[in-house]
């Protein structure tokens, strides 16, 4: 969560996933627009989903930017100890 992370994302959870709470999402398009790897895409309703999970580097851009706190780090995060 610092500038360098922004530029050169550390891959902390290479196998991780993000979760989108669809109920909270307002389809603003921010997460998709600012995902640096193109891992996210909008479905036909405009709700984002992890279209290319392998591309996701867990950089945090999407969950940090989401105005509706509709994205969190995936289930792995909850059980994994951070460094």
């Amino acid at each position, binding site marked *: 969560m610092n500038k360098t*992370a922004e530029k050169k994302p550390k891959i902390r959870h290479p196998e991780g996933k993000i979760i989108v709470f669809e109920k*909270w999402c307002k389809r603003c398009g921010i997460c998709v627009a600012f995902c640096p790897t193109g891992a996210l895409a909008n479905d036909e309703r405009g709700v984002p989903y992890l279209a290319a999970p392998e591309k996701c580097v867990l950089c945090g851009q999407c969950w*940090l*930017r*989401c105005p509706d706190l*509709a994205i969190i780090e995936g289930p792995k995060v*909850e059980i994994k*100890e951070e460094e």
Partner: protein
Amino acid sequence: MGPKSPVYEYLRYKKKFPTVWCPGCGIGTVMGAIIRAVMSLGYEKNDVVMVSGIGCSSRMPVYVDFNTLHTTHGRAIAFATGIKLVKPHLKVIVVTGDGDGLAIGGNHFIHAARRNIDLTHILINNSIYGMTGGQYSPTTPVGAFAYTAPYGNIEPDFDVVKLGIAAGASFVARTTVYHVVQMGKIIEKALKHKGYSLVDVISQCPVLYGRLNKMKSPVEMLRWQKEHTVDVRVTAKRSPEELKGKYIVGIFKDEPDMPEYVTEYQKLIDSLKEGATKR
């Protein structure tokens, strides 16, 4: 609670979500940053107070699982002053809009800054009155449109940072919703700072400000923020023309040693206890 607990443990997520804010409104992003800062500092939820005024931004307290107080328009800082004086151990975060914190609330802002009382003031600056539907505010740029400036605004805007510094605040910073990582770090510093800390967060109101000023999408507005900011550390290298119409971001003042009001008051109390003879 602490740095490792998930964000939603700090939210009243079960009942109060989704939020009232419009799609793509920057306020929610600021809320996320505040919560993550509180998390990473490991504050107890019971020890955190969030006070707000009235406005879209001031709806934030509903969503966070702290001691939350949604007051009257413009007066949040004065309410917060009472809380902080009575319970100095509480971390008191004040969230205001630009209208709330600078128009009707301008006086409480400059006086709390003058006293250098230990409050963290997050000013969510979207250059418009969001809640009442898009009137100009003290931070609307000259020439911008608003429903009470249908021919373009003719009132110069405040430089919030300069005003905060002149009034006496000991920590003064500016950031934008676009700079979400920087915002997080600055808010963390502001929370840790003992004294009045002001963070001017440039935010987007796509629905009113954006629509009236030909920037329709939130993404577009975030890009605009990116393009219209200069870091304070490089301003010296920029010409005045390059700086024109730009927001300068970064930390402008950080003086942890300035006397803080509640501490000074406690010293007074202690001195009266010792020298019981005085008056």
